[in-house]
């Protein structure tokens, strides 16, 4: 399916600070939204920072078609995200969207969503879509500390939420892969959607593969264009080098040559 892409000045309608490192940016379009799917992302121009030359990609955290607004969940990493964190209601932000493919719909009702850090972003959107199909997923979210645990009420609308923190200050202590639902003999899921730091995704993919659970991950390769023309964002797949921004960001792990060369 070919979805038309927009290059638009979106209006910042809210900038909600979740904690020291994370915030939510709500952006509104002057026009009617096209169809947007969970797993897709946007490319944001950070025009007021002298050290951001290229756009910055962010997953779409949620979409409100009634208001033609979408939300991004952003983690402050460097100059670009720091500048975004300072935007105010009414500011304007140039965005290309919607980009990339999307999570596929599951052929099962036993669904687990796993996210870590800012990687949880696309999962909220996905959980909502699953609900429309009357699927009530288990949602396993990993955070650094209790302080960073956020939006649990939002996720709880769509599924059963489980939490891990690195320091045990909330939920289970450890990484998401240390949580009983994934560590147990045989996880009770037939499909996993996963998004987060690459080592986390690889660990989840390993568990999934071991138990023959279907698993889709959303990759965060560095991008120059975000719409398929520069060939900078590639990942090796069973079909050769594919573009994460067009053929991805979502890949079924059985298509990725993961586990061969670790750094």
């Amino acid at each position, binding site marked *: 399916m070919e979805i038309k892409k927009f290059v638009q000045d979106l209006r910042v309608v809210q900038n909600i600070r979740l904690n020291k490192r994370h915030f939510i940016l709500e952006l509104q379009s002057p026009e009617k939204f096209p169809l947007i799917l969970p797993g897709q992302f946007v490319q944001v121009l950070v025009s007021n920072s002298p050290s951001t030359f290229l756009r910055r990609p962010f997953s779409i955290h949620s979409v409100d078609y009634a208001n033609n607004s979408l939300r991004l969940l952003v983690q402050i990493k460097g100059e670009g995200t720091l500048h975004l964190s300072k935007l105010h209601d009414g500011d304007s932000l140039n965005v290309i969207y919607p980009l990339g493919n999307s999570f596929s719909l599951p052929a099962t009702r036993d669904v687990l969503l796993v996210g870590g850090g800012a990687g949880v972003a696309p999962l909220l959107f996905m959980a909502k879509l699953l609900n429309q199909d009357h699927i009530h997923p288990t949602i396993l979210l990993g955070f650094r500390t209790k302080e960073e645990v956020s939006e649990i009420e939002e996720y709880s609308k769509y599924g059963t939420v489980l939490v891990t923190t690195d320091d045990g200050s909330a939920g289970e202590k450890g990484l998401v892969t240390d949580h009983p639902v994934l560590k147990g003999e045989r996880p009770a899921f037939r499909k996993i959607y996963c998004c987060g730091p690459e080592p986390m995704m690889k660990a989840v993919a390993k568990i999934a593969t071991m138990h023959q659970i279907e698993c889709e991950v959303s990759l965060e390769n560095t991008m120059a264009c975000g719409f398929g023309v520069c060939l900078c964002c590639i990942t*090796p797949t069973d079909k050769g080098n594919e573009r994460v921004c067009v053929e991805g960001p979502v890949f079924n792990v059985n298509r990725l040559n993961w586990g061969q060369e670790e750094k």
Partner: protein
Amino acid sequence: MSDLSVNIAGLTFKNPVTTASGTFGYGEEFREFFDPGELGGIFVKAVTGKNRDGNAYPRMAETPSGMLNSVGLQNKGIDHFCREIYPKIKDFDTRVIVNVSGSTIEEYVEVAERINELENIPSIELNISCPNVKLGGMAFGTVPAMATEVTAAVRKVYKKVLMVKLSPNVTSITELAKAVADGGADAITLINTLLGMAIDAERRRPVLSTITGGLSGPAIKPVALRMVWQVHKAVNLPIVGLGGIMNATDAIEFILAGASVIQVGTANFIDPMVSVNIVRGIEDYMKRHNVGAITELVGALRTD
């Protein structure tokens, strides 16, 4: 009405704005943003003899006002191009020019010969920045004699407009320009990327899998302008100018320095609409300055 049309060795372009090889795919993706027919032309991604996977990821590093890439000519080869890509792009209402690469003279010749047969491709751009595998990896574009040789070999089999794209990583760009002129080039494209490197100080590793890569974007504009100007004065061939063009003012600068046609490269990544906007901005400039035909501005820099 301003006349934006230009002409390179008999080949006309409706306006001087084209897109740079490797930054515009095969034009397909951009059709979601605008009609390529609004541009003077598009230079499509490098085509080689056989399929190439390109380099390993990571292939990109952001740098001050620029970026490094080490894509490494990823493409599916000339057969695939003729069979799968050409039919999709042959009816674009603009000049479609193919960037041709290779590691041996035979490869360049083979690809050029095949493209010569494609009716709706009026021109090729030889990318001679690739290392010559037979001659120990020294790039064709850095040794004048090699540059003449590969140009002449392609010239023999290629009957349409032959452009040669030079690497800026040389002591004397005019020497290289003269070398490809001697080889029979119809036009010279300036510049390809500058060889650079980025380091991640935290991990103490190069950012690119290939350690070094090609620098593009506004950072290189001063170097590109200088080379266009030097070659314009030294060699009597039309020039296709590029390197860091982000807006119409940048484009006018290249035209004043001597470029008949300009290419927009890295800027496409930041604003997919930029090339069309540059066409409009050039028109505005011409109106404001009372310039009837864009050709009046080519090389019109005042240095008295």
